């Protein structure tokens, strides 16, 4: 089976302007969402308490609210369904320091009489730990980006590195925008998903770049946009296929992985779609607009090859004892 004709060259760079408009709209839209609606930080980063309760029958949410009202500790508590009508999550902004009697115990006690239930999960994150996790989270995103930037610059060229990082920023921004749009709780798992997107999207970009680099050295054309078109077309089957298989598995995770993994899988789904798109329509055009100089690059490669050959010759002479 084949999705794409192996020999055909598609004119991707021809639509790059339109793609850029779309990207700018999406990214700007994401930032508007981030600044107006904002991200809902979950307990991991904001601190607070989560109590997950499962009832034998459908959870009596109104009755639960009434019961929790009695204690001022639960002021501002939100109760939402979690995956099924039997299961609910109580979210609180507050946390507690006492080891023997914490806010989860209080919730347990307060809910007595609302039916037959089981407390399945209690997460309490104090403000100090929340701050620390947030700092670490931002640091990890930055560090990963810098590490990747250095590696790509080292393996390719600085323009490739900048183009791939712009694609990354594009992907992460849109993923964050989607998270804000759907009001997902940003917790550690979402951060892990964002870092995975970072790696995944770059994976895609690098495969395309690797082909562009190869195309530049092997193809005869000196037209960069034509060379890029050829390279993207050659990798199109791979890009689509890998995205599809990854999309499959993340989709099953999203559908069947359970409520706890939902935000994680959702973030990844968005990331896979956007990451695939960006490796073709963002990273490559940026490379083109940066004025990547095919002739210069070839000259440099030729120079390098010449030096290698020279070295080789010297070594051979040395080994033969002629020097």
């Amino acid at each position: 089976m084949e999705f794409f004709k192996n020999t055909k060259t598609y004119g991707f760079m021809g639509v790059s302007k339109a793609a850029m408009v779309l990207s700018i709209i999406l990214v700007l839209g994401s930032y508007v969402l981030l600044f107006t609606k904002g991200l809902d930080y979950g307990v991991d980063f904001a601190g607070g308490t989560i109590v997950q309760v499962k009832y034998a029958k459908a959870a009596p949410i109104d009755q639960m609210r009434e019961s929790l009202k009695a204690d001022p500790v639960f002021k501002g508590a939100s109760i939402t369904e979690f995956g099924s009508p039997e299961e609910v999550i109580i979210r609180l902004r507050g946390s507690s320091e006492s080891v023997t009697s914490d806010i989860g115990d209080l919730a347990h006690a307060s809910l007595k009489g609302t039916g037959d239930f089981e407390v399945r999960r209690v997460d309490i994150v104090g403000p100090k730990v929340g701050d620390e996790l947030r700092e670490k989270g931002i640091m990890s995103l930055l560090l990963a980006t810098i590490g990747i930037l250095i590696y790509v610059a080292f393996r390719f060229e600085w323009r490739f590195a900048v183009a791939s990082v712009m694609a990354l920023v594009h992907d992460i921004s849109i993923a964050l925008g989607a998270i804000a749009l759907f009001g997902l709780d940003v917790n550690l798992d979402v951060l892990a998903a964002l870092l995975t997107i970072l790696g995944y999207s770059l994976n895609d970009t690098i495969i395309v770049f690797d082909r562009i680099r190869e195309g530049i050295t092997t193809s005869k054309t000196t037209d960069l946009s034509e060379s890029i078109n050829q390279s993207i077309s050659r990798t199109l089957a791979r890009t689509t296929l890998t995205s599809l298989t990854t999309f499959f598995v993340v989709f099953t995770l999203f559908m069947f992985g359970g409520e706890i993994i939902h935000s994680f899988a959702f973030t990844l789904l968005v990331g896979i779609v956007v990451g695939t798109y960006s490796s073709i329509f963002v990273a490559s055009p940026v490379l083109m607009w940066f004025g990547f100089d095919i002739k210069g690059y070839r000259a440099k490669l030729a120079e390098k090859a010449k030096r290698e050959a020279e070295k080789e010759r010297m070594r051979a002479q040395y080994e033969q004892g002629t020097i």
Partner: protein
Amino acid sequence: MKSSSDSPKTLSAESMRMKLNYRIIIFVATILFGVFFSLPSLLQTEKGAKITLGLDLQGGLHMLLGVKTEEAVKSRLKSIASGIKHYTDKDDILIDGLSAKEDRVIFSILDSDEAKLIDKMLAEVKGIKVDINGEEYRVTLTPEEVIATKKQAIDQAIETIRNRLDQFGLAEPTVARQGEEKILVELPGIKTQEEEQRARDLISRAAKLEMMAVDEDRKMRVYQMTPSEAASYGDVILPDVAQEGVKHLIKEIPILDGGMLTNASVGFDQSNRPQINFSLNSEGAQIFGDFTGKNVGNHLAIVLDGHVYSAPVINERIGGGSGQISGNYTLEEAQDLAIALRSGALLAPIYMMEKRSVGPSLGADSIRASLVALLGGFLMVVIFMVVYYRAAGVIANIALVANLFIILAVMALFGATLTLPGMAGIVLTVGMAVDANVIISERIRELLYSGVSIHKAIEQGYDNAIRAILDANITTLIAAVVLYAYGTGAIKGFAITISIGILASMLTAILGTHGIYQMLETRINQSKDKAFWFGIKAER
């Protein structure tokens, strides 16, 4: 590198057989390794290294505790103050206004001739700084001493909590220092709310046992007295543990404390109620004997964590250094109390910084859900690969299965913990591990179209693909390593499975499948059926 066949044109019966090559040998060895070491985890056998399930999958309690180290500093100052009081009382040195504040002890001497005696005494106390302003003394801890005291409080808390949990009888408790001053406690064995409550009570209990004298002269007035009035007599007002509202007037400086305890165990009184039997070391026994000998007819208060457990009348001198603490406890409470007393008091109180508790039923649900996702995703990918690439897809799928076994085996061998995000990592690896084979297969197809021989298409296809695969995998690995370094708890599990998956895929998807192709090459050459082997039209 190119170890394979010579000329595909000269087919003979000899070359029809599958060829062994070093790649296939390594690959088979890896598969055997993977299967062998993942079996204990898959079959849950008795022997062999198994993968540990994270608390989010098996249920349990995870806590990050802080130590109120400033309390340890305060109590150190308090003990310096009692030392000064003890010394000046003994030698009849007159001092005034002795008190221990947040960070200092102050007092003033009344007779400046006695300054020498005071100076001599203070010189013997280590780690303090003394400022003298006329008659006024100001004793502070040196900065080094403050740091040392705080550090000791944390060390001691870790040690004590570990001792207590070891004796509590839960499976595999973890107590470890995290960062400078946090204590990580993980209890996988917790199954119920009640168990969790018991464990938390045990961990946080100060367990400070003191034998104290009752102020016999003023005890009748305890209900009219304010704490500050009591303090002016050198007394404290302590509540009774059993009877609500009952208060005791106790002399502030204890006769002896739990530090002199050698053992504590559960026993039973005449009416068969549980009680704690304890024994003291020889020094404690001496002090206890002397005190009870001198105070026959008076009351002795047994005080635990600021509550009076009993205050019996001393009938006679109690030698031998043993005693009982009775209270209205259940057998379980008595057992926990005995453990806490045996493992010593906490120097400073602890507090909760983070707690994550997962019930076993939720863990089981998570395992089930992630297994369904893994299986579903795996089947979809496997079927897709075969439909798209035919035999090449089957080869890629063999590598994929091998990859899964290797992930399990490596995790089991390194004692890594499998968490829910870790499961997600494995699911994601399934999607991403076939990537290498997709890249390779596309390269081979491309070369076949350009009309090169099958041998050349395979060899050159691998050559062309490998650079891109390496670059792509290394960048993903960079993200995973950062995630591991900066992630906490369950997220680390995700970084681990992703990293192992990537590394394993280099072995299985690149080396392994290459070996299979080389082994089958003569067959592929013979059949010439590119549609069957690579899923492309033979001629176009």
